[in-house]
């Protein structure tokens, strides 16, 4: 499980992360600014890197202030 803390554009973040091909991320719910995702890999550090890179590679994601961490 990973948590993405992002105060705005949360729908966009969910959509972007769930569209990643490398691993399968599934949106599990949100608590305030924190969005929880389950991911089908044991390597959580790698899952964090991939999710972060996917968000940052988009036009909107490049200017968002967010944090990705293990749950």
């Amino acid at each position: 499980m990973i948590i993405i803390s992002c105060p705005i554009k949360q729908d966009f973040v969910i959509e972007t992360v769930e569209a990643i091909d490398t691993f399968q991320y599934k949106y599990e719910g949100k608590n305030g600014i924190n969005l929880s995702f389950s991911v089908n890999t044991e390597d959580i550090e790698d899952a964090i890197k991939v999710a972060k890179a996917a968000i940052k590679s988009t036009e909107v994601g490049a200017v968002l202030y967010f944090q990705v961490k293990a749950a």
Partner: protein
Amino acid sequence: MKSFTNWMEQHFVPVAAKIGSQKHLVAIRDAFIAIMPVTMAGAVATLLNVFFRDLPNEWWGLENSFVSSDIVSGIIGVNGNVWWGTLAIISLVFIFALGYYIAKAYKAPALAGGVIAVAAFIAVTPQAITVVSEAGEEIGAWGHINYTYLNSSGLFTALIVGLLASIVYSKLINANITIKLPDSVPPAVSKAFTAIIPGLISIYLCAIIAYLINLGTGKAIGDLILEYIQQPFLSLSQGFGAVIIVIIAVQLFWFFGIHGTNVLAPVLDGVYLTATNSNNAAYTAGTAVSELPYLWTRGSFDAYVWMGGAGCTIALIIAIFIFSKKDDARAIAKLSAPMGAFNINEPVMFGMPIVLNPIYFIPWMIVPVILTIIAYAATAMGVVPPVFTPVPWVMPPIIYAFLATGGSIAAAILALINLVIAVVIWGAFVLIGNKVELEEADAE
């Protein structure tokens, strides 16, 4: 708060995203980031010479035995060489990086983009210098470049010429106005040939513009850009209002979840970093710290205001340790403190959280403004010297101010005073946070 966030999402984020992804602005930002190793090497050389030459000369007088010793004079000489190869030619380094990134953004061969931008820059740079003989006679000498065209004074020229040269080159590449070689030719040779016509046109274009401007005005393009664009622009950035606007904008961006320094990088790096480098060049040329041209530079923000990260969050961490009765806040502060000491504040920003947290909005906005007012006034009154040495942003607070001002104890003390003030203000809101917690517990 929610309706405002929705408004931000619909109206502001798309604009910020456009600015943040604008390829020319991204290339400028990336070019400034790319030259950081060179800038830092120059900064280290400047700092070492402050401690090995300038301060000893100030304390013990000129030609003292410490500075004159073989070892120390050798160290000073090596530092001089490093400065000469870095900050003295920073515009040359910058234009290569800019040409590279612009070409990359246009999907043209990037290395050739950098090389062509450098050639175009030198093509617009005066080829002769005037020296004054001991008898006071002015002698013109052809075949020399005055390094002041290549140091921070030339940064805006490098920016403008670099953009022009590399955009023209890249567009011609994309329009296929190139020499095409058979597939059997090795890629490195093929790429070099591809760049010949676009590079030739691009360099010629810059050279013709520089020639015509020189013909019409009698001045070099670099002198005109310095006089009519760079200096007015930098002067504008030095006003108190301009500094406060930048501070408020960055704080607002961060609070609402937008990467403030990323969006404003062209201003912070293009303008205020240029001011840092200009101060450095002036200092190295022998200008007294009290006479440095720019009062507020890129490092001033980090030295006195954004200690521990934007919002002076190291002060919040300290305030939590002193005042907070909430176990979760203390745990977050404990986790955030080691990174906060190196100005990384994501753990505390998202852990508390501060972003979109109405309790912390007021200190988040007013702490940096108050710290800026104090630091700006102290610098303007000459209590502390302006920041003139680039320092890595991960340098811990207080030490940052000390190093960025060439070893000024007064600057370190000012940073400490600002930190104490920030702790007091943040502390008041941590106490409010305690109260809110207690009231919530009572209600339950």
